[in-house]
C-alpha cells in the first residue's frame, strides 16, 4: 500500500467515529458553557472537569471492553438478569472504582489548589459534588454500556467496536450533565 492509500483508508474508517464523538463533545460543551454561574461560585470545580471526564471514559470504557471479551469467550450471556455473578462483579467494581477515583480527584484538587495558593471551595463541598456526580453518572453509564454491548451482541455486532464510541460520546455528556446536577444539589443543600 502506498502512503496515499493508507491515509485514505485510515481517514475513511475514522471519520464517522470522530464526527460522532465531536457531536457528543459539543453537547457536553454546551452544558459546561451554561454552567458558568456554578463554576464561578464553586472555586476549584473547573479543576475537576478533565479528571472526572477521563475517569468516566477509563472506568466505563474498561467495563465495556471487559464485557465484550467475556461475550466473545462465552463467559457471560447477553441477557439482563441480576444473578449473573460475573456481570454483577464487573458492574460493582466499575461503580466502586468510578466513585472512589472521583472522590480522590476532589481531595487531590483541593490539596493542589492549597499548595498553589489558589482559591478553593471547602473540601466537603467538592468531595460531596464529586461523590454525587460519580454515583449518578456511574449508574447512567453502566446502564448505557451494558445495554448497548448486550443488545449489539445479540444483533450480531462486535461489542469491541461498539463500547468505545458509546463511552466516548455519552461519557462526556453524562459526565458534565451529572456534574451540573450534583453541584446544584450540593449548593441547594447548603454546601459552598
Amino acid at each position, binding site marked *: 500500500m502506498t502512503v496515499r492509500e493508507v491515509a485514505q483508508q485510515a481517514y475513511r474508517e475514522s471519520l464517522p467515529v470522530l*464526527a460522532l464523538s465531536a457531536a457528543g463533545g*459539543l453537547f457536553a460543551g*454546551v452544558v459546561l*458553557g*451554561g454552567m458558568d454561574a456554578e463554576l464561578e461560585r464553586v472555586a476549584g470545580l473547573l479543576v475537576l472537569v478533565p*479528571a472526572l471526564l477521563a*475517569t468516566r471514559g477509563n472506568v466505563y470504557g474498561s467495563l465495556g471492553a471487559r464485557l465484550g471479551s467475556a461475550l466473545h469467550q462465552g463467559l457471560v450471556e447477553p441477557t439482563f438478569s441480576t444473578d449473573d455473578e*460475573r456481570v454483577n462483579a464487573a458492574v460493582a467494581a466499575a461503580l466502586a472504582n468510578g466513585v472512589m477515583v472521583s472522590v480522590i480527584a476532589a481531595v487531590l484538587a483541593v490539596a493542589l489548589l492549597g499548595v498553589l495558593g489558589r482559591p478553593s471551595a471547602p473540601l466537603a463541598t467538592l468531595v460531596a459534588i464529586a461523590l454525587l456526580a460519580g454515583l449518578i453518572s456511574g449508574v447512567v453509564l453502566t446502564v448505557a454500556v451494558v445495554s448497548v454491548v448486550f443488545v449489539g451482541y445479540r444483533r450480531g455486532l462486535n461489542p469491541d467496536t461498539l463500547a468505545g464510541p458509546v463511552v466516548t460520546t455519552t461519557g462526556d455528556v453524562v459526565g458534565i450533565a451529572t456534574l451540573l446536577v450534583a453541584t446544584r444539589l450540593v449548593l441547594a443543600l447548603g454546601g459552598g
Partner: protein
Amino acid sequence: MAATAWTVRGIIRRMLPVLVVLTAIELGSGIVLDTFEGTLLRYPTLLVLVPVTIGMAGNLGSILAARLSTALHLGLLSFDADDDRLLGNAVATIALAVTVFPLVGAGAWLLQTVLGGSRLPFLTVVAVALASGVVLAALAVAVTTVTTYAAYRFELDPDDVVIPVVTNVCDVLGVLVLFGSVRVLVGSA
C-alpha cells in the same frame, strides 16, 4: 466457577492504582483550565470548546494508537521515517483534524449564539478550533509513535499500554494547546 479473575476486589486492586495516576495527570490539565478560568467565563463559547477539544485530542491519539498497534502485531510496521504505514496514518490524523476541528468551532459558535449569545466573532472561534486541532494532531502523532515504539522496545503489548497513556497525555495536551491558541488568537484580557 472461574470467578477468581472477576472478583470485585480483584478488579479494583488491578485498576485503582492506574486510575489514580491517570487522575493526577488529568488534574494537571484542570489546573491549566483554572489558570484561564477568567477568560473562559468571559467568553463561554471557549468553555463550549473545552470538552470537545479534550475528547478529540484523546480520540485522534487512541485511533492512531489502535491502528499502529494492530499493524505492529501483524508485523506490518517498521519505525523508519519513510515507513508507508506510519506516514499514511500520520497524514490521515492531520487530515482528520483539519476536517473536524473547523466544524467543531463553527458548531460551538452556532450553539452558543443560539443559546446564550456569543461575544466572540465566528472566525475567531473557528480559528481557535482549527489551530488547536492542527497542533494537537501533530502532537498526537508524535506521542503515539514514541509510546508505541517504547512499548515495542520494552516488549510490552501495545494494546495494554499505549491507549491509556496516549489518551490521557493527549487530554492534557488538549487543554494546554487550547490555552495556547486562546492566548494567541483571543488574548488573555
